[in-house]
């Protein structure tokens, strides 16, 4: 620690350069923090992953539907307490950029998912209004919808049987609000009657997208999942039953391998960072050769000079990196709030902080090693003579 002021003095020798370098390191670690949050969010399988819910979907693809008749057979499997189901209904509101998250849901859906905060009155209104929908507060606020409004949706998959067009007009019968902040993402959804969807879509009826089975004891989930899958073995609709978290993860992976994408972006950012800071450090040492030679003349050993330059490099990256991660920590809840819960970035956890700090030290060490080696190998007599 007694050498810290020497390192600080070296860093402050060219203040502008040091500040700019710290800013570039800050930007890199801000990106690291945010992208790592995205990776964690995608890998967590969502906040709604109930431990007592299994999702039964086609073994081959989530877009391949299952026969409705399977629901009762799943319900009869020992250990299954409740079943419901849902279908994805793709569509947008007014303009294509306003893509909506719409699910056609079966009965008892809200018993399986109390997380939506749908009141019994709303559930009744949905059940008794054929064209009814429940809209989440976030999406309703975004477009200024309220209960009683007509909601025209341009379907992107299913045409309406009665009109032959993809325009569907729904009636908003309620606006729900998730009671827990962690479930705010649910408020981006629109929920409609599966019965209406089943009867009105032109692609035929009697099909469900996936079945949700609530189990009595999550400890037996694995055996129950096996029993459910056995129901459809060797049929044209073989199933894959997963915990809800696994299901959400596989759903998210349809977008792409988020982990790989994040790693590739971070890798490119850090490669550029290393070139930039490596060049800065090399330049900083070149400029200070007479000073380093003076330290050696006074009696600093080669190892001490190496440690000074190495410490300078690591400290430079640590300052920028810690500021970047701290800023990412501050921004995470702001991004989550600003997106109305659509993007649920988790707080930067101790694992991410640990990984970030390890990365800072590694980058500092890599960019510092060559300049530090050069400083260590400096011949005092040549350096003092300006050779």
């Amino acid at each position: 620690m007694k050498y810290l002021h020497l390192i600080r003095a070296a860093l402050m020798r060219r203040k502008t350069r040091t500040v700019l370098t710290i800013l570039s390191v800050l930007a890199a670690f801000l990106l690291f923090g945010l992208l790592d949050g995205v990776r964690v969010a995608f890998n967590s399988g969502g906040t709604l992953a109930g431990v007592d819910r299994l999702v039964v979907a086609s073994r081959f693809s989530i877009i391949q539907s299952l026969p409705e008749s399977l629901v009762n057979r799943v319900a009869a499997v020992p250990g299954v307490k409740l079943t419901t189901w849902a279908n994805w209904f793709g569509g947008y509101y007014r303009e294509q950029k306003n893509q909506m998250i719409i699910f056609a849901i079966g009965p008892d859906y809200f018993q399986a998912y109390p997380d939506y905060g749908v009141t019994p009155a709303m559930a009744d209104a949905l059940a008794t209004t054929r064209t009814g929908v429940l809209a989440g507060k976030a999406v309703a606020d975004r477009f200024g919808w309220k209960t009683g409004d007509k909601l025209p949706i341009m379907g992107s998959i299913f045409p309406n049987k009665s009109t032959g067009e993809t325009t569907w007009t729904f009636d908003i019968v309620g606006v729900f609000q998730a009671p827990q902040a962690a479930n705010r993402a649910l408020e981006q959804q629109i929920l409609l009657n599966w019965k209406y969807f089943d009867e009105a879509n032109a692609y035929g009826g009697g099909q469900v997208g996936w079945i949700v089975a609530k189990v009595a004891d999550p400890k037996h989930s694995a055996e129950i999942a096996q029993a459910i899958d056995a129901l459809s073995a060797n049929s044209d609709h073989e199933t894959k039953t997963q915990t809800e978290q696994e299901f959400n993860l596989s759903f998210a992976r349809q977008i792409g391998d988020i982990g790989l994408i994040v790693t590739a972006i971070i890798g490119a950012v850090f490669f550029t960072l290393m070139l930039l800071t490596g060049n800065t450090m090399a330049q900083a040492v070149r400029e200070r050769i007479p000073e380093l030679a003076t330290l050696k003349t006074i009696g600093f050993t080669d190892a001490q000079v190496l440690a000074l330059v190495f410490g300078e490099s690591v400290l430079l990256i640590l300052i920028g990196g810690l500021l970047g991660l701290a800023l990412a920590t501050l921004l995470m809840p702001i991004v989550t709030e600003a997106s109305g819960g659509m993007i649920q970035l988790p707080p930067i956890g101790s694992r991410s902080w640990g990984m970030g700090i390890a990365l800072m030290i590694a980058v500092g060490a890599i960019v510092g090693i060559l300049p530090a080696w050069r400083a260590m190998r400096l011949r005092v007599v040549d350096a003092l003579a300006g050779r």
Partner: protein
Amino acid sequence: MSALVEIRDLSKAYTRGRQTVEVLHHVTLDINEGDFLALMGPSGSGKTTLLNLIGGLDSPSSGSISVAGTRIDQLGGTALAKWRAAHVGFIFQFYNLLPMLSAQKNVEVPLLLTKLSAAQRRQNAKIALQLVNLADRAAHKPAELSGGQQQRVAIARAIISDPALLVCDEPTGDLDRQSAEEVLGLLQVLNREQGKTIVMVTHDPKAADHASHTLHLEKGSLVESPP
């Protein structure tokens, strides 16, 4: 008086590309404890090379150098660095202060290599700055000081570890006459009152006049008198 520095048959050659240049030829010399020796000679005569060898900054090609009984020509890099820290103070023509540190912090730098506490280091640096009459400029950075003041800070740094030997390479070469006189007067005080042995390279005969005696180097060899 006993010899603090004993140089025997010392030669130094440098290789530059394919050429080997012998800068010092078989120099034998004793420098007594408490001596103030001026080394003079034309450019390229080997003065700075001899000074660097005496200060342990370079190793001879052949011959030996003992300082206070230690064969420094036999010491390795780390041992030589530690020896320098404990036994030699260096004063350069261009002061070689660290520009981002205050005068006080510059003087403290050699003490970082000791086990002294921060408070002791601060205290010793204050005393050293008082000795060179710069106590009031302790907080100033080198750029805020005149050349003469910077050289006095460098002298304070050189004596802070209380070395027996001071090696000075053209200590007045960058100074006006008045500042040069102040610096040379200070070196005389350190020599006479504190018993420091001083070896000074200079081109300036007036500077050499402050030394107790002068030796001349000519083409890498000691000569009796200047040509």
